[in-house]
């Protein structure tokens, strides 16, 4: 049986506004995909370390040297709304 997920909660976590109809369709599709993906749970992995970087290496940090960063105005020119050197967004809180 396909895995049943709380799609409204997941969509909220992902910050994607979905219609009821879209939610029903994604819920069904994700159930089938997760059912397939859950096959990983059948493999015995006790004592196996998870892999994040496929090569046996850790972060390759660069030297801590100050270099020029991107031009501020050029970067801000791509923003949907910018003012006085800042990105501008709607209020974070709903003020009634």
């Amino acid at each position, binding site marked *: 049986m396909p895995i049943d*997920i709380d*799609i409204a909660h*997941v*969509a909220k*976590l*992902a*910050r*994607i*506004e*979905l219609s009821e109809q879209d939610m029903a369709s*994604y819920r069904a*599709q*994700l159930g*089938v*995909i*997760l059912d*397939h*993906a*859950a*096959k*990983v*749970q*059948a*493999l015995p*992995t006790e004592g*196996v*370390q*998870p*892999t*994040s*970087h*496929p*090569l046996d*290496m850790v*972060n*390759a*940090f*660069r*030297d801590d040297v100050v270099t020029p960063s*991107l*031009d501020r105005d*050029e*970067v801000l*020119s*791509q*923003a*949907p*709304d910018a003012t006085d050197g800042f*990105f501008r*967004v*709607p*209020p*974070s*809180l*709903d003020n009634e």
Partner: protein
Amino acid sequence: MTELSQLTLVEAAAALRTGECTSVALTESVLDRASLTEASVHAYLTIDRQGAMAAAEASDRRIAAEKPIGPLDGLPIALKDNMMTKGIETTASSKILSGYIPPYDGTVVKLLREAGAVFVGKTNLDEFAMGSSTENSAYGPTRNPWNLDTVPGGSSGGSAAAVAAGSALAGLGSDTGGSIRQPAALCGLVGMKPTYGLVSRYGLIAFASSLDQIGPLTRSVQDAAILYEAIAGHDPHDATSFPGPAPSGTERLGAGVEGLRVGVVNELSGEGIDDEVLVAFRTTIDRLANAGAEVVDLSLPSTATALSAYYLIAPAECSANLARFDGVRYGLRVDGSTVDEMMSLTRAEGFGSEVIRRILLGTYALSAGYYDAFYGQAQRVRTLIIQEFATAYEQVDVLVSPTAPAPAFELGAKTQDPLSMYMQDICTIPSNLSGHPAMSVPVGLSASGLPIGFQVMAPALGETVMFQVAAAIEALSDDIGRPVLEVVAS
């Protein structure tokens, strides 16, 4: 002389050196070709005619002044549109990045620019590289030059179609689960994914950071080796970049396969693979054996679980990476009364359905209570796959399988069933999970005239032997030629 737009990189570079042609002539040739083919193929999202001609003229001046030039100087190349190009629109085929002009070049773009390459333009892809057909583009699908009713594969389908159609001599793609190798197979090209960490991801719009790797799509193995060498190397801007020297791609081309041990991966070479693909695969194996390779059958049982692990790991990483597209710093914004509402409306409007599907899948797999059962377990399975590969490479020099389970399929054939689309990558995904290099070489045509690819996989940093075997396969296979494309002047 062959039509300039149909030359390999090596042939074109030689023609430039002898004065048989100029970079301007080469560039005009691919641009003219694009003006004939684009109406039906739609390989490009942006063609930068002005920038390309300026780069070509600069190259011709270097050649005229007898300055030392590298192997890519003056050669027209296509870039997948998920690579940042300063001053040229970069969208990753998403509506959420429509009109976005990057303020910097990605490292591979910078390296190729410095090498004198000419950028024809930015090619179409499945949105944010998520897909296997290039149908998931917000700007319409790309078609396969071998048969316009079929897909070019994906996600690097635009670069593959451009090279196959003659609107670039070579292209760059990115490969997270097979996105270079599968379109190479479907478009009759050589496509190569380097060892994870060898090519910088700086300036590549991230899909799944622990899997993504940039690589070449070309008309020959030697071209792929040259382009790979031009983009490989440590980059201080990428903390996952391998700090040592990159292995040579060209060193053992032409050395043959005498005495090399070639392992056939049973799990990837039988069930689920189309008959014609299997016949072409077996024929190639026989040719390798006749050429002196020792062929052994091997079982890597964990690879059968690779697809499942991939569809937890890749969406999990994508859901984190794509959090940056929130209507604040770049791209689309849909107004809302609060920042939360603005973000939720922007993302719903800006992302296509496959991207939303994967973000939701990844968000779920990483959410409280499920992390260890899904993402954690998938990362442990990944370790098992790496261990199995390591054991296999104690017995063989390279592993082989078909690249894609079947030749190109028709547009629309798999768009309603995500899982059937995901199955396109069953043979290619294990090398992304293990981080090992792998490449596809064309080995024949199906009865209906569609290309079939053969995959060569090698251990980490095993590029040299991988290219050696791939070059031998190319030499042993019948030349499939170039697609015959009916074009009309637009």
